[in-house]
């Protein structure tokens, strides 16, 4: 029973556990987390909306008449296709991954208040 030895050895090893909420690991620099849209660079071409596999981006018309994407966090698949599709490099993936929420409907990024 070779595992007996391993089991006993493990008793004297350092824990492998990361005490998560108190200790955090760095996520890789190109981790695909929550999407961030730079509304100042966005020209509202709608390419990202067209390519989004989950309809997480939706084009809305602002009072100024400009079109901008609205971002639904609860639909996003974090595939970063929109980053690739954007001709103006206005979209980027952040490393933010702690995305628990009590209400999915409030997790929407609105392009309001910004006029291009």
């Amino acid at each position: 029973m070779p595992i007996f030895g391993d089991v006993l050895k493990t008793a004297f090893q350092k824990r492998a556990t990361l005490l998560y909420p108190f200790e955090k690991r760095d996520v890789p620099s190109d981790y695909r987390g929550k999407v961030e849209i730079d509304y100042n660079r966005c020209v509202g071409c709608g390419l990202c909306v067209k390519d989004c596999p989950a309809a997480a981006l939706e084009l809305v018309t602002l009072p100024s008449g400009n079109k901008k994407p609205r971002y639904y966090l609860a639909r996003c698949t974090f595939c970063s296709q929109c980053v690739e599709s954007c001709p103006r490099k206005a979209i980027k993936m952040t490393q933010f991954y702690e995305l628990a929420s009590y209400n999915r409907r409030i997790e929407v990024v609105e392009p309001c208040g910004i006029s291009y």
Partner: protein
Amino acid sequence: MIQDLIDLLRIIVFPGFLFFAVLGLFFEWIDRKFYAKLQNRVGPLYAGPWGLFQPFADFVKLMAKEDIVPEGADRPLFSSIPVFALALSLFAVLFLPVCGAQGVLSFEGDLIVVTVILTFFVILVFLAGFSSASRYPGVGAERSVLQLLGYEIPLVASVLGAAAVTIQTEGSLQIKSIVETQSSWWSILGIQALGFAIFLLAAQAELERVPFDIPEAETEIVAGWLTEYSGKKLALIRLAKDIELAFLCGLGATLFLGGPQPILPGFVGALSSTIIFVIKSIIVLLILTIIRAAMSRLRIDQMVNFAWKYLVPISILQLLLAVMVPRLIVI
């Protein structure tokens, strides 16, 4: 009058019900924590210091939860089993010599009562399974009885083996005299080492722990006979099982490790003997936990096979040896 009060306190508080309830929860914590340690984890951490109150939190939470009796279950039987289980395990611990060589209850032949109690647990499990009127508990109950057929004889044989010397020298089947016999020489140090190993395996089966957690095999029959229990009933059953764990560890320590006997003679006193008893029980518990961590679950047919092919013959052999060897030495 005063004596009655002291006796009552002895039964209810120390070293009776309350002490063993706390000890049972403490043992569960040690078991979980050490199991986690063996798996390179940390285990419960945030309930009290080092998660010490984790089993207590589980117990309180379950007590406060909604209690559901499944439709179609035999209601009176289903509801009374947790109480019976708790009562039985609390009754059993009264025999353990926690402080001093004598338990709260002690009389000639109490060892026999203890072995009978061990069998009663299984009967309760069986009834619990069948009163649930559900498939998984039914299978679990069936398995627990099948399993009992496998480990009952080795368990009794190992217990009797430990008592063999006492029977011959003192003609007594009392736990007290077994403890006293071991004042200079622990049973485990002689031929009883084999008996101790058999006792550990049988205890593991009695407690339904890996590799013998067949009646409540999680991946096969969900939670076995426990599947339909919830809320207070589950809390009581879990407490009963914890106390049973403490009881079997204590019994192992009593029969094989000299119980509350001091490690060095002349180190006596009520408190220290309690501490010694607990420490020895913990040693037994740690061994049980290592067994649990280092094996996979057997199948019921393999378990019965293993028990009858190896465990029973070996246990009878060790019983014979235990009876013969001292006699040879005496002659």
